[in-house]
Each structure stands twice: as C-alpha cells, then as structure tokens.
C-alpha cells in the first residue's frame, strides 16, 4: 500500500467513525423518543451539543491529569478506529488484530478513569469503580465470543475474519454459522454500551452521572465525542465479527445501524440493574451461551 494512501485512510477512518457515530447517537435518541411517544431531537442535535459544549466560555479543570484524561479518552478511540476495517479501507488492521483492538479500546476508559480520579469527587470515583466492575462483567462473555470467532476463522486478523465471512455470501456469515455465539455477543455488546438496564455507572439520580460529574464545557464535549466513537466501534465490531462486515458502504452502514438499534430499542424499556445483579446476569446467560457456542466451534 502506498504510504500516501495509508495516511489518507488513517485520517479518514476516524473521521467517518465520528460522523457515523453522531448519526448513531441521533438514532439512539430518536428511538428512545419514539418508544416514549415523543418527537425526539432534530437531525443535527448531536452536532449542536458538541459545538455548544466546545464553545463554552468558562469551564473548570481539576489539574493536568483531568485534561490528559479527556485527551486519552478521545485519542484512544481515534487510534482504535484505524484498527477497525471498513469497506475499502483497512488502515492498520493487519498490524494489530482483534485482541489488540480489544485492549486498545480499554485505553479511553483508562484515560477517563484517570481524569475522573483527579476531579476528587467521590461520585466520579464510584462511577469509575462501577464502570470497571461492569467491564469485568461484560468482557468475560465478550472475550469468549471473540475467542470463538477467532478460532473458527483461524486468525485474529479482522480483515481475514471479514473475508472468511464474505467468501460464501449469506451462509458464511458468523451469525449464521455461529448463532449461539452471536446471541451471546449481542448481550455482551449491549452491556458494553452502558445503556439501560446496564447503566450502573451513569446512574443520574444516584451518583450524579458518575464519571461525568465534574465535566463541564469541552471536557463533557470530549466525552460526547467519545460516545459517538463508542457506539460506532461497538456496532461495527459486531458487524465485522458476525454479519460479514460490509462489501459496500450502503450495506455496511445499514447493518451497523440495525445492529445498534436492537440493544437501544431494548434499553429504553427497562430500569436499571444493581451492580451485583448485572454481574450475575452477565456471568450466567451470555457466558453460558458463549461457552456452548465455543463448544460447537471447537
């Protein structure tokens, strides 16, 4: 690959992710509104929010680590997007693979955790403690699922995993070949989004939105950007693992939005689990399904 081409890909991939991510945020809010029989926000609402937050005139910082935390939260995802192949662009997906991607996706959380830590607000710390606990809950089934997919494809290279699925059309999709794993993956993915009923670390009425409690202006704006990336990454990862990625941008985006619509539609029908209930749920059903799925694969 020509270096120029690669550089353009590396720039384009996060940019696309951000734009698509904003539309996903919009879709999420619209679905919530429809379920609650409301009209919902206008089309550009996510953009308005981000621009507004970045245009705040005064905002507080609790120190250098607070700033760096936000930079890490955004930058980690920007880097992660280049490991996530999209139609026509593979970026550096072949240099890392899925395990690297999985661990790279923890960097933003780590950055956020550090930034929140320096805010010296116990609400934030409790939020992070819960977020890490939630991560312990949903990463176990997620890792089982990823093991199953990678083992079935015989590679950890996402490009190859997608190629294997696209080889035989619809029949070779991961979701068709490994339906049990796909279901387990969907549950784990739902929990990783941090939406109801798994939003233990946001918990507005309880710990004042947890990690975001001391985030004002561009700090909160950074987290809004991060949320766009998070939605995009999660759904595209699922599409790449189970729905054969995308051959064209149209079916790729269609699949991504549809995949995201499933957990989001479920989310707004439920209240919140307690932490230990989330753990219990995650360690029971998706893990069980995942192990059964892996047993089929082996």
């Amino acid at each position: 690959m020509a270096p120029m081409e690669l550089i353009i890909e590396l720039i384009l991939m996060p940019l696309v992710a951000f734009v698509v991510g904003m539309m996903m945020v919009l879709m999420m809010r619209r679905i919530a509104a429809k379920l609650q029989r409301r009209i919902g926000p206008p089309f550009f609402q996510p953009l308005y929010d981000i621009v507004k937050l970045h245009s705040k005139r005064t905002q507080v910082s609790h120190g250098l680590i607070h700033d760096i935390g936000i930079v890490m939260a955004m930058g980690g995802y920007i880097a992660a997007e280049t490991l996530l192949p999209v139609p026509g662009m593979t970026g550096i997906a072949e240099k890392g693979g899925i395990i690297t991607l999985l661990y790279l996706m923890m960097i933003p959380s780590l950055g956020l955790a550090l930034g929140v830590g320096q805010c010296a607000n116990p609400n934030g710390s409790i939020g992070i403690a819960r977020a890490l606990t939630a991560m312990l809950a949903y990463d176990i089934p997620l890792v089982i699922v990823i093991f199953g997919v990678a083992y079935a494809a015989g590679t950890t290279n996402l490009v190859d995993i997608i190629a294997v699925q696209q080889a035989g059309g619809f029949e070779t999709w991961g979701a068709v070949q490994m339906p049990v794993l796909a279901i387990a993956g969907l549950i784990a993915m739902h929990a990783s989004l941090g939406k109801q009923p798994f939003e233990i670390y946001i918990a507005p009425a309880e710990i004042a939105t947890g990690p975001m409690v001391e985030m004002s202006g561009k700090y909160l704006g950074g987290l809004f950007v991060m949320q766009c990336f998070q939605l995009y990454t999660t759904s595209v990862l699922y599409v790449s693992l189970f729905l054969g990625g995308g051959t064209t941008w149209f079916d790729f985006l269609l699949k991504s939005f549809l995949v995201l619509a499933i957990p989001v539609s479920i989310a707004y029908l439920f209240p919140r689990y307690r932490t230990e209930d989330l753990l219990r749920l995650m360690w029971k059903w998706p893990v069980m399904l995942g192990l059964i799925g892996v047993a089929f694969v082996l």
Partner: protein
Amino acid sequence: MNSINKIPVIEEKRTNPLARVFDEFVRFCRSRSLFILHYCTGCGAIELPPAMTSRFDMERLGIQPMVSPRQADILLITGYVSIKTLKRVILTYEQMGSPKYVIGICSCTVNGGMYWQSYATAKKLDEYMPVDLYIAGCMPRPEAVLAGLQKLMDRIHSGEANSWEDYFRNYDYYLGNQQKLFGENWQTPTDIITEAKHYDLIGEGTLGKHTQILEQHQKPLEALDMRLGHDLKEPTE
C-alpha cells in the same frame, strides 16, 4: 424594575465575515442545545415532568435535563427560595460553566409569591444572581414553561442573553446583597474574582467595597498546582 433591562447588551460582532458566520453558527448551536439543571426548591418542579415527557417533549427543542451544575446551561429555579436554600443556589450557579442562564419559575422567585411576608424566604432572586427570565404563575403550566424556554432560545440566538457576564462584571453588587443576607463571613468555595480575571471578564463593578470584605477573610482558594516540590521549604519536624 425588570432586572434584565439594567444589563447592557455588549455587542461583539467581528468584522471578518467568516468569523461572523462562525459566531452566528455557534450562537445557533448554543440556542439549540440547552442542558437544564432543575433546582427543585418548591412546588413548580411538578410542572417539569409533563414538559419533558411525551405531551410537550422538551427534547425536540434540544433541551435535556442534566444532573450536576458543571454540565448544565440553564439553572431552573422552580419555587420559593428560602435563605438557607439560596446559599446552595448561589454555589450551584457559580459552579456552572458560562454561558449560563437562570430561569425563575413561579411567582415565588419573582417576589416571594405567597411567602411574601415570610422571614425565611428570599424575595427577589435577581438581587443575588442575574436572572434571564421569570416565568410567573402559581404554578405556570408546561406551555408557559416551554414558551419561556423558547423565548430564552431566541434571546440566546440573537446574543441578548448574556446576563451571566453581568455576574462577573457586577460581582460587587451581587456579593453585597448576598452579604446583607448571609453576613460578612459569606464565602463560597468558588472564586469569582480570580475567575473573572482569568477569563478577562473584569468590569467596573467586579471589585468594590463588598469584595474587599470578602478578600479580607477569604481562605486561599488557589488550585493545587503540580510541582516537583524541590523548591519547597523543609517541613518542620
């Protein structure tokens, strides 16, 4: 006297046409994305759930509830403000990031309403912080709340809603009123004077005799700067 009228509108239109378009865009975004912090001090709060949910749906105007003052743009004070509550309201207001707007909902925030002769209720909210908009009524219906919010959006879009600057530029006036109520030892953990200096929002009324009183007894509020500590004096042992 309406407090909004006394706040001068400072027009800062830039000459560069691109910059003006940009400013216009930013103002538009500001007006279409408002996070409210509802400080539910009294009965008016009960009118907010209908305003947010399916009947009136605030979100279609880009208005969302938020939880902590750091994230919010609008401080919504819904009902009477007792003097004890007022301290917290002021702290909450000072912790919000500018541009910030205050809406007083219900008659109580205008002049005490039915608590007009109560010794424990603050009467004029705009003496203690700049109020952008009052929505009178006991209590105002959700339609009125939404109409008020839309009016605020228009004012933000046209650049008129900059009363938050007044709190920095005329801090002495607000501080004086606060001191009258809470005594001279009044101090919040926030530091408005250094903030005004930091953001270049010092006005003629920022400093005055009331801020002098504050500075006399104010406990130091400097941020903890990162330091290697080799320049420190030896701790006494």
